[in-house]
């Protein structure tokens, strides 16, 4: 098979055995790879209704279609599982070299079942699978684990996806780290690995991924690489996504103090430009990426001297303005701790912001030595360690903002900023109505990256302050583009390099696979995968009230900035959500209608 390996590896941790299964052409064409393939395999292997942290849960790693080839910035892999944070679809992605290597080892995907009786790591050495003792690695940080495994196996070319302390301790937003600085970050897949006693997956891939027409793939890739040096990727190259702080502050959609405000009076000090100027040490790329967006920051002096980590916008937002922290070295230290302990920076920051507000309101029990309040950078840093270790207040916060607010009660859920349990990213949805819709209906919870619905708002293609019919169609189209990129495994930062993603994507896909795939087929694949994700959630007990936003954002108008006075009342969100269901061909209750299932080849699959 060209483009693909045509094989998935099924690993049973309970029995410590593995087997290969064939992936058919029809299945691969229908679900592509990456996110689509991962969700398809998850849907097929997971029994509905299991507790996400019980052995019955399943984790799937799936490579993007072009992993292992020269196709630029297409090195993403997807991790799908039932999320311990949302109880719905866990749907994370990471970049760098893991997917290239896994595919060169001979697999498009790995499906992990069961639970090992003692800590193990799995070593996939081309077609041989080893279950190796990880008891000595238990307790180690993500990157230290990577290095220790490379050292143990004696090969620098081994790529590792590993969890840190947070995953071991079942922090519900624990991530999986790979390649010394990349994370499958959101929805808590690290906790699922921890629950399975699976410390890491190490891969050595010495094979090659064959493509049908090497000359054509090479030429198309060279053209894309040239495009990627142009304006379409300029902001990702420098200063990187952290440039968003000033942009969003200007637009009045930069969430500050747990979404109590939407702009900073003085944003320059915490801006990406300042961060870059003071702390930038090195620019790094994922495999075969001509953009190189990863900006490694370092603290040279002061109490956080030596902290070093790559920082992107969402991290800077969550650990900076959202907690009202303006101390860049502390943000770098906090981000480094999250990465090494293995916790999603976004959920960590937004959960901490909830805790700071709850503490200021006197709703939280005191914690020894940690004085949580907005702007207290030392407390933020200290509490991150406690969350990973589930110590003191960390025990409550490790559950994420939704469950923590349930535990604390006293109406603290009013300001728990999540949707379906997933903490929101750094844009205020009240001033971006298409984006608000995308967040509310997202299958993995509140997420800009899966919805891409912020784009029409920020690019001025629509009136961002207005909720109106028609946004359902726009949000759907954006979401299907996102899911297509996630399934092809192409980084979203490349999307501006395509004039027509579906046409050019279909050409590239055909060149790699040798199958004659049309643009329309890719459009449908995107739609099919979005619908399957929804069907997964419905099977897990999704109900319409979950397609919502935090009470604060639906009850308080924007208090300041350019959007002052704009609100997002529940009736407005209802209008948008209903419009979206209609555009999708779903029932009024938001379930995938039988006719839509038939059209997309998904019928007969609801358990």
């Amino acid at each position, binding site marked *: 098979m060209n483009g693909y390996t045509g094989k998935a590896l099924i690993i049973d941790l309970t029995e410590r055995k593995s087997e290969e299964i064939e992936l058919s052409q029809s299945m691969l064409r229908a679900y592509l790879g990456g996110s689509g393939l991962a969700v398809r395999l998850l849907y097929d292997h997971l029994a509905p209704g299991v507790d996400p942290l019980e052995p019955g849960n399943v984790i799937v790693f799936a490579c993007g279609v072009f992993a292992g080839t020269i196709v630029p910035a297409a090195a993403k892999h997807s991790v799908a599982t039932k999320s311990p944070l949302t109880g719905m679809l866990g749907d994370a992605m990471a970049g760098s070299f893991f997917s290239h290597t896994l595919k060169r080892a001979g697999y498009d995907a790995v499906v992990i079942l069961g639970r090992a009786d003692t800590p193990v790591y799995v070593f996939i050495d081309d077609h041989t699978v080893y279950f190796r003792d990880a008891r000595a690695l238990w307790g180690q940080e993500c990157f230290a684990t990577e290095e220790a495994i490379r050292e143990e196996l004696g090969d620098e070319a081994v790529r590792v996806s590993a969890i840190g302390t947070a995953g071991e301790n079942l922090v519900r937003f624990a991530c999986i780290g790979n390649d010394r600085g990349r994370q499958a970050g959101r929805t808590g897949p690290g906790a699922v690995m921890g629950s399975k006693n699976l410390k890491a997956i190490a891969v050595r891939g010495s094979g090659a991924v064959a493509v049908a027409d*090497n*000359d054509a793939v090479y030429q198309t890739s060279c053209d894309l690489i040239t495009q990627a*040096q142009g304006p379409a990727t300029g902001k990702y190259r420098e200063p990187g996504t952290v440039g968003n702080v000033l942009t969003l502050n200007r637009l009045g959609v930069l969430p500050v103090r747990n979404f109590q405000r939407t702009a900073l009076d003085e944003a320059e000090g915490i801006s990406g430009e300042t961060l870059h100027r003071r702390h930038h040490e090195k620019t790094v790329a994922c495999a*075969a990426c001509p953009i190189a967006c990863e900006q490694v920051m370092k603290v040279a002096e002061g109490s956080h001297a030596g902290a070093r980590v790559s920082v992107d916008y969402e991290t800077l937002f969550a650990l900076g303005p959202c907690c009202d922290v303006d101390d860049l070295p502390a943000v770098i230290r906090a981000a480094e701790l999250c990465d090494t302990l293995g916790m999603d920076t976004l959920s960590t920051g937004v959960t901490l912001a909830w805790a700071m507000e709850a503490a200021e309101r006197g709703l939280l029990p005191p914690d020894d030595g940690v004085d949580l309040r907005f702007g207290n950078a030392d407390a933020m840093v200290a509490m991150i360690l406690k969350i990973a270790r589930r110590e003191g207040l960390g025990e409550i916060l490790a559950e994420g903002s939704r469950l923590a607010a349930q535990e604390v009660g006293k109406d603290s859920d009013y300001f728990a900023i999540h949707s379906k349990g997933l903490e929101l990213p750094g844009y205020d949805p009240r001033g971006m109505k298409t984006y608000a819709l995308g967040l509310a209906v997202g299958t993995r919870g509140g997420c800009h990256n899966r919805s891409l619905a912020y784009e029409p708002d920020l690019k001025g293609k629509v009136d961002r302050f207005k909720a109106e019919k028609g946004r359902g169609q726009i949000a759907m189209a954006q979401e299907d583009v996102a899911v297509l990129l996630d399934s092809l495994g192409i980084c979203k930062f490349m999307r501006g390099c395509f004039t027509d993603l579906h046409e050019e994507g279909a050409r590239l896909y055909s060149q790699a696979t040798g199958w004659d795939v049309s643009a329309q087929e890719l459009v449908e694949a995107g739609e099919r995968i979005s619908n399957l994700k929804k069907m997964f959630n419905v099977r897990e007990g999704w109900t319409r009230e979950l397609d919502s936003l935090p009470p604060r954002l639906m009850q308080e108008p924007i208090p300041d900035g350019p959007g002052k006075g704009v609100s997002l009342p529940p009736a407005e969100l209802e209008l948008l959500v209903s419009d979206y269901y209609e555009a999708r061909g779903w029932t009024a209750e938001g379930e995938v209608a039988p006719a839509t299932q038939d059209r997309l080849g998904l019928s007969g699959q609801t358990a």
Partner: protein
Amino acid sequence: MSPSPHVPISPHARLVVCDPDLCVGCQLCEFACASVKDNSANILRSRIRVMRQEPILMISIACRGCEDPVCVKVCPRDGALAVNPDNSLIDVDNDKCDGCGWCIDACPFGAIVLDPETKRVIICDLCAGRDAGPACVEMCSKDALEVSTPAVVAGKVSQSALRTLMDALDEPA
């Protein structure tokens, strides 16, 4: 910095060098090499290799064109490896090479690899005969790679050292 096809490469220029400050570790050079030299998508067939160490250290390494190359000396297959008199790089005679790998072990830079398909060793030849020069250099979008000479490299190292010294002198005590 990338050589344009219109600028002839100096006859003394005989190695691909990498600036580790500019290298982002993407491996596109490896893909370019395997694609252009062997029409293959397999980067294990690349004659240039990216070394990436935690978390900010990365560099591409190809044949350094040693003056008295140890790879040639250790080759037990008489004459399988020979210094090319025109550019000081290493010619591999595929009829004589049997892939034993002694040269791979001996190369102090790890710049020789075994082609997994042909089972013969492969070494950078600066894309001999390719009008646009080495494919890796052309591919590198970060201008980290260039074709250079030991003398030019030495000059740059000196300049860099001087700048470091100047910066140190500028800093307040």
